[in-house]
């Protein structure tokens, strides 16, 4: 009898979990129907990435299953498939992280490559339709393009890391999975909290152990406390945690985070990935007040922008890990995938 009750209870939990998941999926389908889910799962999407990168290194797109209307951008610029990095890539690197969204038919790959023998970091987004590549979006971080670290593309740092933080690869227990909308909304709090950051927001969306890696380098301390010493008066520091950096109010110089496109919403792993731009207007926003009343002048002295792909691991409504690849680009640049109005808007889209 006791065993029977246990079986019934287990079945009920399973059904409940399945119901939650199914309900979540139905909501997702209602929000963005996509016919490819059944035809191209995560493994299928990843194969497209490998096939694409092998073709890039061979400088030969002719064998790729490309849609007739395929669109390709590199660093925000529309190019013919076969141009740009296609002509200069010489090998694949060792760092590989695939982020799949079969519902949207999209995959984003963070990895390392070689260009004329030099290590570069790559972001690749493919959109697959009817088992053909419909969209190709890339960011190639090359030596000299990142002025804050002119000799560092991040690739060597990524390869030292070996791969993404294992947390990114862990599945969220089915009962704890959230909808695509909720996943995007949580990740978007990061952008909203950083834009014109004043230190006064509710930053409880950061998990206590949140940490961030940018272009292969640790950008936060693992804990949301100062590890040692004190922060400089006018700059946040990598010695702070995710939340402490935001609470400092010192990221005010990021004046606009725009064109927030959430292109991967992986509810199974709790991973959201957005392409976006961080603008630094560098005008009168350089002078601001921190929460403790200090007047600070900080940040870039001329207008420029980061072109960014940023991944978030979200668990229980909190951000635990952040992983970003980015490079400098002209101020106000468009992604090549948005209207001018959407490209300038700070509204998130998915």
């Amino acid at each position: 009898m006791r065993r029977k009750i246990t079986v019934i209870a287990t079945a009920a939990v399973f059904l409940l979990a399945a119901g939650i998941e199914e309900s979540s999926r139905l909501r997702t389908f209602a929000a963005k129907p996509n016919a490819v889910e059944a035809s191209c799962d995560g493994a299928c999407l990843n194969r497209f990435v490998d096939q694409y990168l092998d073709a890039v290194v061979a400088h030969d797109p002719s064998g790729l299953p490309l849609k007739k209307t395929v669109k390709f951008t590199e660093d925000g610029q529309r190019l013919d498939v076969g141009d740009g990095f296609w002509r200069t890539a010489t090998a694949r690197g060792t760092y590989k992280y695939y982020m799949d969204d079969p519902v949207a038919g999209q995959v984003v790959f963070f990895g390392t490559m070689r260009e004329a023998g030099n290590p570069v970091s790559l972001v690749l987004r493919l959109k697959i339709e009817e088992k053909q590549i419909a969209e190709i979006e890339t960011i190639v971080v090359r030596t000299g393009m990142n002025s804050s670290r002119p000799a560092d593309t991040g690739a060597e740092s990524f390869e030292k890391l070996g791969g993404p933080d294992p947390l990114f690869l862990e599945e969220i227990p089915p009962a704890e999975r959230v909808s695509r909308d909720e996943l995007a909304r949580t990740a978007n709090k990061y952008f909203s909290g950083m834009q014109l950051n004043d230190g006064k927001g509710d930053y409880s969306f950061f998990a206590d152990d949140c940490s961030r890696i940018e272009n292969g380098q640790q950008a936060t301390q693992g804990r949301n406390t100062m590890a040692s010493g004190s922060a400089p008066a006018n700059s946040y520091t990598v010695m702070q945690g995710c939340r402490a950096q935001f609470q400092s109010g010192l990221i005010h110089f990021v004046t606009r985070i725009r064109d927030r496109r959430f292109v991967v919403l992986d509810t199974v792993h709790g991973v959201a990935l957005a392409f976006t731009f961080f603008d630094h207007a560098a005008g009168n926003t350089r002078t601001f007040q921190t929460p403790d009343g200090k007047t600070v002048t900080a940040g870039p002295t001329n207008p420029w922008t980061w072109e960014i792909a940023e991944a978030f691991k979200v668990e229980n409504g909190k951000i635990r890990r952040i992983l970003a690849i980015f490079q400098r680009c002209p101020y106000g640049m468009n992604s090549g995938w948005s209207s001018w109005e959407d490209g300038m808007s700070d509204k998130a889209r998915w």
Partner: protein
Amino acid sequence: MRARLLIVCLCGSLLLTCVAISDRNALAADESCDRACLTGMVDQYLVAMVAHDPSKLPLAKDVKFTEDGVPLQLGDGLWATAGGLGTYKLYFAEPESDAVGAYAVVQENGSAAILALRLKVAKRRITEIETLVARKPTTSFLNTDNLTEPRPIFLETVPPADRPSRQEMVSMVGKYFDGIEQGNGDIVPFDPDCIRIENGIQTCPSSASSPLGALSCGAQLSTKIFTYIQSVSPRRFPVVDRERGLVLAVVRFNHPGTQQTVEVPGRGKMTMGRYSQWPNSTQIAELFKIKDRKIKEITAVIVTAAYKAPMGWE
């Protein structure tokens, strides 16, 4: 009686027609923008920019503004950061097409930048604003130390009888870009003493101590050291100032990153410039002084861009 009435009617309608034509001429005179008007627009623009206040400008409703090839809201970009102007201002105008251009040194939060500006005017209102801003972080080389006054040759007036047509002037400049693509200085109508200054730095003739040695502008091209610039495209010539013998070309140099070395006769295998190392482009506003049907002097503002990044006006 009937004939008299007809004559009165004809005179009346003729008078009305004459009044209408006269009104139109008066209107046209009011709406045209001569050289002084065009350069005055540049002055107004620079003053408004430093004041961070575009409302001071006579703008057309659908005015378009780009900075470094990116369409922006007027008031954004350099408008938010320009803190003052240097003494260097070089203006050129083409009243026939309501176009004017300028180079100016601008202070931006303590650093000097070079602004290349192009305005298009219609009915005395600004319809197009195109800017390139050479700043230290966006270009690999920049030196404003010597940019205190325009070089006098750019201010010289060409006698009316000696002025080539617009088409001839554009053709001569086009050959310069062809010469870069082909690595052939011989096809370019260079004056033997031609000087080129890029972002405030003289780049030809090169000095004896440079890796190329002392070479004229034409001889430099013929070494093929610049053939990593696979194409100069698109090319636009928005301001041709025949009175001063000046052509403004706004172009993009495309560097696919596929060729990094070249065999230079007498010097062996040489590594090309840093822009040869990966796919990238440069967006350039380049001003040519043409004298005696030769390219006498060149000055350019150059900004690094992503490979084949649109310039916003294609």
